[in-house]
């Protein structure tokens, strides 16, 4: 039986590179306060940061939702488009559609989805061109304990 459920959502603006990363930092603080193992928090932070930067760099804005229950930490990403034309290509490590300006800032290494998949126990991506992108990531609490 699930006893405790925590849910918080964070708005992420498009192209706001001063505040982008703040949602991931807030989620880190929340998970640390809940007493989760440092390696688990690190995995969630890496995956969430990548998703947050994808919203800021590629989308028209979106939302990050943190849901914690007794067994899992779930991160849901919902953005408002423009969506991904070729998901298979986008999932390849090293592939990026970032602009030169973004690449000069150190973004656009094409490692975002790779890092998310590597860190999360479950990774699900849905997207359609000209619509939004939705990502679900689940981290199992038990198998990520220190």
């Amino acid at each position, binding site marked *: 039986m699930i006893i405790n459920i925590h849910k918080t959502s964070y708005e992420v603006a498009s192209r706001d*590179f*001063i505040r*982008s*990363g*703040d949602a*991931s*930092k807030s989620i*880190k603080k929340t998970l640390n306060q809940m007493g989760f193992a*440092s390696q688990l928090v*690190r995995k969630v*932070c*890496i995956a969430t*940061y*990548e998703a947050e*930067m994808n919203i800021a760099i590629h989308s028209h804005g979106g939302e990050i939702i943190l849901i914690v229950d007794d067994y899992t930490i779930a991160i849901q990403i919902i953005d408002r488009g423009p969506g991904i034309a070729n998901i298979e290509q986008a999932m390849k490590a090293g592939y990026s559609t970032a602009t030169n300006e973004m690449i000069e*800032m*150190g*973004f656009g*290494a*094409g*490692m*975002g989805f*790779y*890092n998310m998949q*590597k860190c999360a126990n479950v990774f699900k991506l849905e997207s359609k061109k000209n619509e939004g992108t939705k990502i679900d990531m689940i981290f199992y609490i038990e198998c990520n304990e220190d």
Partner: protein
Amino acid sequence: MKVKELLLNKNFTLLTKNSDTEIQINDVYICDLLSWVMSHAGNQCAWITVQTHTNIVAVAVLLDMACIIIPEGIGVEESTLKKASEENLPILSTNLSTYEIASIIYESNKNVTK
């Protein structure tokens, strides 16, 4: 070595306020691709990067880094320093190269058991 011990070397300047300089530097990580840093840098490392925009603060805080070091006299945006100061994250500036910075920390740490 601790961040405050590195600052005893006159080649280094602390650019931020309210920084936690008591923290131990366990490692050095050198890279300018943020996603690569996110997936490879260890906690309590000194991160040497030529990136100076505000987002480097988020990366360093998320990975519990000891400090960021900006090499070769590169200037840092005031907005980045403000954000780092809010997080008590030390940002150091130096005219030294990445190789020279890493060598100084390596020499200091090589006989210390982590």
